[in-house]
């Protein structure tokens, strides 16, 4: 009898040693032109499904490349000459974008057509010609986004909307609220590295090790309960005649050359963090320091292979 019990215990031990050891739930979903990975150290598979649905919903609403069945999205707005009634969620994103663009003219959600043309030119390793840039800038200058009653939206003019700098961060804001409502505090939502929502890690201090872009070797910082937004030309940049052109376009000059090679922004808001990291690609260091104080954010700025500035509260460590 004792032997039987012993063997039962040993069987359990063997089975335990064969388990994967995974102490979290995770889900991956293809949206926003990237893979978003959700890791939950608490909760259940329903939470993973809910997060996936949030991501897919905002991906559909903010898509400027294709119409989606049953909804009016950014593509619909761009391709309509009349006012379009949109989901209140999309209307809300657009309202927030307009608020930021009125404050910072270097952020303009109406530079979609210019960004697309730069992207096409860079795909062929070419610089967009001056005539096309000027034509696109005129379109932006002469266009207005009208947010009307009953969630109606219309672009007056020929410019196109592009919410690429906002969409992932905004979805992460919604996910953060959802997780808080679900009493989940230990999680990591990694929206293709450019927009990360870090809750707490399942360890003693709850801190995640966050590696800096590849241009910086083995350097990292620790973070928790924060949005981490990153813009840079290290992934989509194209080098032509010794200069690196990126997908981040200045809506005033039309240039695709940026002051910085990568900017990391730590903030309390996903959508603002995403906008700010894009915006600060065009700022010099002194202006970034002022911006940090005004907007209560912390940044890391990279040029070439060097960190040229980081907020004093961010401790940059090396492996």
């Amino acid at each position: 009898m004792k032997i039987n019990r012993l063997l039962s215990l040993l069987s359990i031990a063997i089975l335990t040693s064969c388990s994967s050891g995974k102490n979290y739930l995770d889900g991956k979903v293809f949206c926003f032109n990237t893979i978003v990975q959700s890791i939950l150290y608490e909760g259940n598979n329903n939470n993973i499904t809910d997060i996936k649905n949030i991501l897919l919903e905002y991906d559909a609403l903010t898509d400027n490349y294709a119409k989606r069945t049953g909804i009016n999205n950014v593509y619909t707005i761009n391709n309509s000459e009349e006012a379009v009634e949109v989901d209140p969620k999309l209307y809300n994103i657009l309202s927030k974008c307009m608020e930021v663009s009125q404050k910072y003219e270097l952020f303009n959600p109406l530079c979609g057509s210019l960004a697309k043309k730069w992207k096409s030119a860079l795909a062929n390793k070419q610089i967009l010609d001056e005539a096309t840039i000027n034509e696109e800038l005129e379109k932006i200058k002469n266009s207005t986004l009208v947010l009307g009653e009953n969630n109606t939206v219309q672009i007056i003019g020929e410019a196109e909307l592009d919410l690429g700098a906002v969409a992932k961060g905004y979805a992460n804001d919604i996910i953060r609220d959802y997780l808080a409502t679900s009493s989940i505090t230990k999680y990591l939502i990694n929206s293709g590295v450019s927009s990360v929502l870090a809750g707490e890690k399942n360890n003693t201090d709850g801190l995640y090790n966050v590696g800096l872009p590849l241009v910086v070797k083995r350097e990292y910082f620790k973070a928790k309960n924060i949005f981490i937004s990153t813009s840079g030309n290290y992934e989509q940049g194209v080098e032509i005649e010794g200069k690196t052109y990126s997908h981040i376009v200045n809506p005033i000059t039309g240039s695709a050359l940026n002051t910085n090679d990568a900017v990391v922004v730590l903030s309390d808001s996903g959508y603002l963090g995403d906008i700010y990291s894009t915006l600060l690609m065009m700022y010099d260091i002194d202006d970034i320091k002022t911006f940090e104080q005004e907007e209560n954010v912390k940044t890391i700025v990279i040029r070439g292979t060097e960190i040229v500035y980081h907020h004093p509260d961010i401790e940059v460590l090396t492996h």
Partner: protein
Amino acid sequence: MDKTKLRNDIILILSLLLVAAVTLIVLLTRTTPGKKTAHISVSNQEVEVVDLSKNEDKEYLINGTNGVLHVHTHEGAIAVIESNCPHQDCVHMGYISEAGRSIVCIYNQVIITIDGEPINDVEL
């Protein structure tokens, strides 16, 4: 000596040896520290597994949904060096080598991800 007790002791020792052996096998078959593997999938189906630890200089032709991608490995890194996609984002990403990194070609529904033990929890 009681024969039953002796038999039980032998069973106990053999059982413990069995547990040790199983544990050792499990540990050895799990991801080896320092080993890097790239997984290439098309439309969420894995089509190729590449051992980057071999540091091989090798080219793979991957049949995407809209064309063929030329994938190249070099010094423990992997890149898409040629693709027929319109924006060439996958090609512009260059070589990746860090665990947890990925290259995505939306046009051809190709995803390349690197396994292994990541140094950090998140790579920006």
